[in-house]
């Protein structure tokens, strides 16, 4: 934790004073800016570049009760080699699975360089005792997870108990060891942009490596506006402390058009330093197929159909 924030986290009241002292978010202005950046049309070589970049930033995700080892193995194979007809296609950044599937996923991706991320800490509700959450994390890390996606306790956050949220993130970060920690705010449940901003700062101060919008399990997931807000937060945080933190929008990003919009947001807000899968990720499952179809269209000039990509 940067020393600058030692005072801030000294007590419940100092933390609250700091968070409520952050400048308020102009909701209309934020949405207008996100919308205006999304209107750009990206074509030809720039589009080809954006598609490859987006593929390399995907955390290919399967988070269902019905996940089987077979499905996870298929996902791992797809992450390592997204388009078997074109070996030039970049691999995705990671596969994202439940903790009990980490070992299977690790085996499936082999030495392809694809990382394994795991949603520990009683995902997606996050309603469990801290010991249970930490156990979840340790188990995933022991099984070989390179990255841990944790959900914050929204109940504590919304009731104003910021210290609990902060301390839980600290504890989970410690349990992660060398694994990188992504902190999920579930922005769809935080009600206001001001809350999203406060959550971002709690996460960053507590030592998150990534801040992530959503679990993908609620109605409103990643939107251009909430992602823009989080990008501004990591930009400001780096300006203040020199520490760079990644951003991961997740849930509801399904088309190439959407993905490119987010890349424009990243470049215009945080800057080109974040245009890399070490600092920016997409949490998605069906997005990859659309990117592959668009890639095939650029390569062949022919529109392709869903028969030409694998079914997730």
């Amino acid at each position, binding site marked *: 934790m940067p020393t600058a924030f030692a005072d801030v986290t000294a007590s419940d009241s100092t933390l609250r004073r700091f968070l409520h002292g952050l400048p308020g978010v102009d909701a209309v202005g934020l949405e207008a800016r996100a919308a205006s950046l999304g209107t750009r049309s990206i074509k030809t070589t720039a589009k080809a570049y954006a598609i490859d970049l987006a593929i390399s930033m995907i955390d290919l995700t399967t988070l269902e009760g019905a996940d089987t080892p077979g499905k996870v193995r298929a996902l791992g194979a797809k992450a390592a080699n997204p388009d078997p007809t074109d070996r030039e296609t970049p691999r995705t950044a990671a596969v994202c699975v439940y903790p009990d599937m980490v070992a299977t996923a690790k085996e499936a991706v082999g030495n392809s360089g694809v990382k394994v991320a795991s949603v520990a800490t009683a995902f997606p509700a996050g309603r469990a005792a801290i010991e249970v959450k930490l156990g979840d994390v340790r188990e995933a890390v022991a099984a070989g997870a390179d990255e841990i996606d944790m959900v914050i306790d929204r109940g504590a956050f919304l009731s104003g108990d910021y210290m609990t949220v902060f301390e839980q993130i600290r504890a989970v970060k410690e349990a992660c060891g060398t694994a990188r920690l992504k902190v999920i705010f579930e922005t769809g449940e935080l009600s206001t942009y001001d809350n999203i901003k406060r959550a971002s700062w709690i996460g960053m101060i507590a030592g998150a490596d990534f801040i992530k919008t959503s679990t993908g399990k609620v109605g409103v997931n990643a939107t251009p506006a909430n992602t823009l807000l989080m990008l501004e937060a990591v930009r400001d945080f780096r300006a203040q402390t020199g520490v760079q933190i990644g951003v991961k929008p997740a849930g509801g990003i399904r088309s190439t058009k959407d993905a490119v919009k987010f890349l424009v947001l990243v470049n215009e807000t945080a800057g080109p330093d974040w245009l890399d899968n070490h600092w920016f990720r997409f949490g998605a499952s069906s997005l990859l197929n659309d990117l592959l179809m668009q890639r095939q269209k650029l390569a062949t*000039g*022919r*529109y392709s159909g869903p028969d030409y990509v694998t079914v997730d």
Partner: protein
Amino acid sequence: MSDRLSVFKTYKLYVGGKFPRSESGRVYEVSDSKNKWLANAPLSSRKDARDAVVAARKAQGGWAGRTAYLRGQILYRVAEMLEGRKDQFVREVAEAEGLSKSKAAVVVDAAIDRWVWYAGWTDKVAQIVGGGNPVAGPFFNLSSPEPTGVVTVVAPQKSSFLGLVSVIAPVIATGNTAVVIASEDSPLPALSLGEVLATSDLPGGVVNILSGRTAEIAPSLAAHQDVNAIDLAGVEDDVLAKELEVAAADNLKRVVRPQPVDWSADPGTHRLTAFLETKTVWHPTGSLGASGSAY
């Protein structure tokens, strides 16, 4: 003179059961046979064409999965709805093709009858082109026709309504879905047909109607990997027709080549069978004696 302002109709595309404007925002002027302005029609882009294919693919499984009998009922329902809006189509066909009201009425009647003809074929085509095959072995050998999938139809240019119906109905009667490029100079009857289809139990996406420049939209549809067949009925330019055939060859699309057709004549089953694939199943009879085998 009435002081009421007349309400001009904004013609729209028919894609996925909805009536969107062209994604490009463009329109073009449609005039009658004497060059008098009639209306503005949407000028579709390649993106509209691709959206139409997505809608058609989505609808295809469900449409093919309905029983042939039900498809016939729905097609018949379309004929009923056409009958009720006959006056409108008579006016549009008369303007588009420069016919008198009475001649246009004959054409519209023929188009409705054509629709009923194909409605009747839905549950009979399997018996005509499928069935049990005689084979030398202890097997039943059965062939049954299945829809090809998504079919692009370039509608006839001159016969704006009878020709249009004659190329759409056979495609959907057999369980395919259609992306139709309407006649370039007279697309209005086609766009009005979309309104009829939308209100006659036909699931959205089974027929998608685009208006615009054939030379602009057709090539990307011919090359589209997710289109299974293409009917080039309305392609009058030989060079373009050849280009489209070459593009279509890439994913082994079925192609119906442009040819002179008298749309008022008995249509036969040619167009109906052009968009069917034959599935053949071999099944052991369980009785070796049936084949005349000695053991």
